[in-house]
């Protein structure tokens, strides 16, 4: 294994770089740009039990150093995914992370039951308890430590697959939510999903997004994400996957120092689709120059 290999609990990845859910679809499009096998993994677009058309109207708003989206979990449904996309993802020769969303406890259980028979093709399930763009479930579950505990415990009893719980930053105390996930048997937490925001078109006096609010991503949210990773790193014993605003290799290193075992690249792929190629090269160079394995950075933050 090269200097970039990392482990997220029991899951070995050849690189700490994972493409974040919703910013790589199922890999087809980006594989026209580079060989995705250089990645540690790919997290599928968020899946639900039934196909979802997602939100109507304008779904993107630009901001300083970032963007809001309100896609609203458009996806073909988990059955279609299993039939049409899972094998393709597996064929990419990189970690296969299946991102799972739902409106209720039962939804999440049903999703696990549907995916469990395909466990040989899946490296980890990423449980989205944090999407701000759907009316029920998701973020509202992920904002409440008790509900997080309940949902994660339920899923834990149904599968032996690694459960990565993706959390929302829109909470007062991220540590207590993350700790609930850990107590319930999560294998890792993913920090962070998007922040809830709004942009108003002052000419029309209406929100730019037809869903009114949307999820804020990009470099603008990085300082919040890094802070949450550092906070949780002290409070948890399970690994953390860092996410939020990563644009270059220095951002990756920052997240790993803060406590991340691996990271996810989201919005950066939308701006520069091949940025993971550059980041991989730069990380390799960094490891060479410092004569380290990248995994040795995790949690090396020294507080004042």
């Amino acid at each position, binding site marked *: 294994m090269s200097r970039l290999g990392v482990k997220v609990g029991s899951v070995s990845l050849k690189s700490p770089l994972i493409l974040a859910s*919703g*910013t790589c679809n199922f890999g087809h499009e980006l594989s026209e740009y*580079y060989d995705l096998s250089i990645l540690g993994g790919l997290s599928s677009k968020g899946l639900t039990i039934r196909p979802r*058309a997602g939100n109507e109207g*304008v779904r*993107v708003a*630009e901001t300083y150093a970032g963007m809001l989206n309100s896609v609203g979990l458009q996806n073909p449904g988990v059955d279609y995914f299993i039939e049409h996309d899972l094998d393709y993802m597996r064929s990419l020769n990189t970690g296969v992370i299946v991102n799972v969303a739902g409106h209720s406890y039962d939804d999440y259980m049903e999703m696990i039951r549907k995916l469990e028979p395909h466990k040989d093709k899946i490296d980890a399930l990423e449980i989205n308890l944090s999407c701000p763009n759907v009316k029920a479930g998701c973020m509202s579950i992920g904002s409440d430590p008790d509900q997080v505990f309940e949902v994660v415990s339920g899923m834990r009893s149904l599968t032996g697959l690694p459960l990565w719980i993706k959390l929302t930053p829109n909470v007062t105390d991220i540590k207590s939510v993350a700790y609930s996930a850990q107590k319930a048997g999560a294998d890792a937490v993913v920090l962070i999903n998007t922040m809830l925001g709004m942009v108003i078109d002052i000419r029309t006096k209406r929100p730019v997004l037809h869903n009114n609010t949307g999820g804020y991503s990009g470099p603008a949210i990085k300082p919040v994400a890094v802070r949450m990773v550092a906070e949780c790193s002290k409070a948890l014993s399970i690994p953390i996957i860092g996410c939020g605003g990563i644009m270059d290799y220095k951002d990756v290193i920052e997240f790993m120092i803060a406590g991340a075992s691996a990271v996810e690249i989201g919005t950066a*792929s939308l701006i520069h*689709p091949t940025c993971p190629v550059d980041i991989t090269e730069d990380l390799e160079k960094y490891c060479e120059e410092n004569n380290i394995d990248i995994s040795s950075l995790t949690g090396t933050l020294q507080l004042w």
Partner: protein
Amino acid sequence: MNREYSCKILKRDMLTSDTAYLTIECADIANRAVPGQFVNVSCSRFLKRPFGIASVDTSAGTFNIGIKVVGAGSSELASIEEGSIVNVLGPLGNGFDLSASDSFILVSGGTGVFPINFAYETLRSKGKNVTMVQGFRDKSQVCLTSDEYIVTTDAGDYGIKGTCIAGLDTLKIEGNTTVCCVGPVPMMKAVGNWASGKGLKCYISMEQRMACGIGICLVCVCKKKAEEEGIPFEHVRCCKDGPVFEFGEVIL
């Protein structure tokens, strides 16, 4: 493999007081582009900006885009200095099916003049029979035109007064003809209906706010009639499944 290009702006002309025409260096894009495709161009804002490819010069290894100033990004790009470097993704999306017939009617409204210009040049070089109908708001907006084209203006201060339909109604349709129309949605609707009435196949091109431009983020969707029953509509990506659709394929 596709990739992001760093491209030099070789030339910037002003076509009208608020519309620039850029000549951009990139042999790959010039060689690969087909009419109806677009490029996604960086500016100092966070997201790139999509523009239809207006022309290519494969021997010079350049392509052109036309930029009408509507906001911060377009105004920055419309006043960019020659010699500057921009990052470009492209050519993106699906173009018109120019093998659909031997006769074409091309209809443009507003900035639709740009992708339609590329279609015109390509069809003429293939020796096809092409009629060009251009609609503009008023004389001040007229650009990339020719005496051979039918031009309409809403204001009536240039060409025929009225919409493109007024122009189209002057035509005699012969044989197997395809219509390609790029412009504001109401216009594409009208032209599409006009074409349907005549039994002609019609392509239109959609504009949606985009982020990636390459199909991975799903922010740029158009509504499409669902194939399955019980589902009112599906969402297709303007950038990857379009921007060119057959009229009737997406809900306008």
